[in-house]
């Protein structure tokens, strides 16, 4: 259940952004979460909904953009077919993760005076 500690870290970042812009409220929160980032999106939303009550985010829905897991050949032989070994079929080199481990606060909509 580290999703709570992720939400806690996210609130610190949101509050810093809101303060810097003298925002009255946060209207919407957009995050990008990789499918292989080790974050359960359902738990993240539950944690967020628990945290946001009576905060600056009280009215702000959390929008989650889930990023697929993609592995690719480091020598440019293209993406690895999912479900097999994580090595390039052409050159045999260990694959590199191209996406799927993101835990990113992407953008906010702030209400400013």
């Amino acid at each position, binding site marked *: 259940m580290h999703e709570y500690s992720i939400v806690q870290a996210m609130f610190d970042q949101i509050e810093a952004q809101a303060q810097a812009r003298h925002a009255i409220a946060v209207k919407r929160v957009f995050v990008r979460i990789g499918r292989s980032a080790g974050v359960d999106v359902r738990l993240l939303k539950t944690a967020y909904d628990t945290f946001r009550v009576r905060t600056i985010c009280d009215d702000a829905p959390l929008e989650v953009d889930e990023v697929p897991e993609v592995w690719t050949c480091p020598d440019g032989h293209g993406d690895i077919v999912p479900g097999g070994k994580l090595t390039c079929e052409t050159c045999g080199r260990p694959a590199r993760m*191209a996406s799927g481990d993101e835990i990113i606060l992407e953008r906010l909509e702030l209400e400013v005076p």
Partner: protein
Amino acid sequence: MCDSCGCGDSDIVPVAVHERILANNERVARHNREQFHDHQVSVINLMGSPGSGKTAVLEATARMLGPSKRLGVLVGDLATDNDARRVRAAGIVAEAITTGSACHLDADMVHKGLQRIPWRELDTLFIENVGNLVCPAVYDLGQDVNVVALSVTEGEDKPLKYPIIFRKADLVLLTKIDLLKVLPDISIARIQENLSMVMPTPVMIPVSATTGEGIAEWVEWLGRIRQAPPVHVHEAEAHGHAHHHHAHDHTHP
């Protein structure tokens, strides 16, 4: 303020942030890592399920190396310091980081834990993480390498069920191999095969803390890591998402 009609209503403005949510943990982890490198301490983040044999491997390591090597352990434990006492009895400097309800260690807990252990005098510091195959994988602590202990009794498909922690492992220690003789259906080859589905460079050392089998190979691996720690291109940095704001905001005594 609304400029179009002068009504005085507030405005909604979009703000692009593009910040890694765990950036603060990563900043503290980088700070830990720099400290470890400055003092030439090799640091191993040892992860695994509860009961996978993490503590027993450390005891066996201490038995093999004896008092000649300077080993230390920071043990993440939910409620007790039992594991710390066990490894201390085996002759290793050890302190517990009692996490309460937290399911993982983070860089700041390790940073605070360091103040209770003479880590600068060590050759190798093990950070024995909380027994858990999910949460510890997400938090960088400042270690040189990740090691996952997987016992033969946990099932051959454990790597497929918990791919993330294995993906991040530099080494998998297959523990309790002395039990294989009573587990006729468990195949080391199938475990290795499953690891290659989740680890781009699968490396596994089978060990038994009870018989000592494989411990020499593990100790040799530790020696190689100490000589030449692997350079990890942080996955996120490779994607260009990293935001470095490194700052030393305090001095160390």
